């Protein structure tokens, strides 16, 4: 991916991510997140993770965020009063975030060149990122994780139904 394309995606990505955090109305916040997720999907696509990009849109944008919007609408939250932060909470949060950003950013920018590997710059083999390559890994090497996933989903669905069901009085 050329630097131009990278910034073309990265700048709006950061802007919309900030939108998630800063937007007053929860609906706008949710929609910022949808746009950010979509931009991430485009980025995945350009990084040869085409299947992941499609799944990102299907699962995140098409399912999870719909659920978020449903809950926001269901609870009729748009007239929520202005949130009250405790005194000093914002300052402390900001300071901690900056420190975190500084150290992790330094690691990301300075600590990586020692990593082995050919780097993102080089071309990849044509099969990289193909569905077959992904499926081959998923269903052989990570077969156990895949099976355990089904249990996770089962637990999630049972838990969600129990929690969301009307309480019989």
């Amino acid at each position, binding site marked *: 991916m050329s630097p131009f394309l990278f910034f073309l995606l990265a700048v709006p990505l950061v802007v919309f991510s900030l939108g998630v955090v800063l937007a007053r*109305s929860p*609906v*706008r916040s949710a*929609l910022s997140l*949808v746009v950010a997720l*979509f931009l991430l*999907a485009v980025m995945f696509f350009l990084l040869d993770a*085409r*299947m992941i*990009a*499609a*799944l990102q*849109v*299907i699962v995140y*944008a*098409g*399912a999870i965020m*719909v659920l978020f*919007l*449903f809950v926001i*609408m269901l609870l009729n939250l748009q007239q929520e009063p202005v949130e009250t932060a405790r005194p000093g909470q914002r300052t402390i949060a900001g300071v901690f975030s900056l420190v975190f950003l500084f150290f992790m950013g330094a690691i990301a920018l300075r600590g990586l060149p020692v990593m082995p590997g050919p780097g993102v710059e080089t071309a990849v083999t044509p099969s990289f990122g*193909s*569905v077959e390559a992904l499926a081959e890994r998923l269903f052989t090497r990570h077969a156990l994780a895949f099976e355990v996933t089904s249990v996770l989903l089962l637990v999630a669905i049972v838990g969600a139904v129990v929690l969301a069901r009307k309480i019989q009085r």
Partner: protein
Amino acid sequence: MLTLILISAVKALIVVAMVLNLAGILGWVERKGSALIQDRIGANRAAIFGFAGAGLVNTLLADPIKFLTKEDVIPRGVDRLLHTLAPCVSLFPAMVAFAVVPFGDRLHVGELVVNLQAIEVDVGVLFLLAMTSLGVYGVVLGGWASNNRLSLLGGIRGSAQMISYELAMGLGVVAVVLTYGSLDFQEIVRRQGHMIGGWIPSWGILYQPLAFLLLLIAGIAETKRAPFDLPEGESEIVSGYFTEYSGIKYLMFFMTDFVEIAIVSAVVTTFFFGGWQIPFLGSQGFVFPWGWSLALPHVVVVLLQVAAYMVKVFVFCCLQVLVRWSMPRLRYDQLMWFGWKVMLPLGLANLVVTALVLLWVRG
């Protein structure tokens, strides 16, 4: 690099032109078709000099101009940005989704090989599903950003319906993918090119009849048309989620409907009816099993295939129009019952049976 971009742009333009025209034509077909079924004349002012056939041209040109010059009323107390955004996020994914379906084989122009598919991705099927799953936002936002309880009801109903039938649609698609072993549309179409015993085209409908029904029904439910038109139920909630829309934004919601019809037709055609394939037409021309043959130049073959694709798509569009005007509407509980308790188990059963048969056949 530049040629690649240019070729992509031309192909995308072709597809956009195709889908815009199809939407316009379908608007006319729907009016005239419904009139035919209900024994009316229908759209009687859409004729030029008394010739009703010219009404089509009239609809294609006059309707957009009229919509463009209408006032765009935004109700009071709504989020104006979201109100404007809703039709955009409704139309955009629909048109992009249509672009991923191939409309012809490879075209050789000198050294250049042009794959007649506007968006050439190897995960085309997933790409299409991703785009159609975004369609739900137009519905939700349109309903929410209207400050109208009828709109909101329509929006919530519509989105719940769309996500319910998305599952059945997904299972139908998986069965097809299982049969062909590929997520690439072109690959799927090519696999349908040969003849069984030299006579019967090996179209997907022969292998996956149940998946065809699942996909068609779920597709119609996704387009929110009768018999699944509860989100827009005219008799109870006016126009559903686009009650408060007017002018071009209304047209965009309206067009989304027709583009979605076109997508369903295109997908059904590609998965089950050979896409751009014509029986007995090879890359050199027609070769019939009873011995005749007709040699054709490459360009003619490709153009014939493109025409075949368009005809097939149009036939299925007309089928959907016919379904809309001949079926009674479902109740909401029936709709949900059908989606979750009939389509979903059927899709799962179809999938398992398909897998078993494949294992048995291929050893």
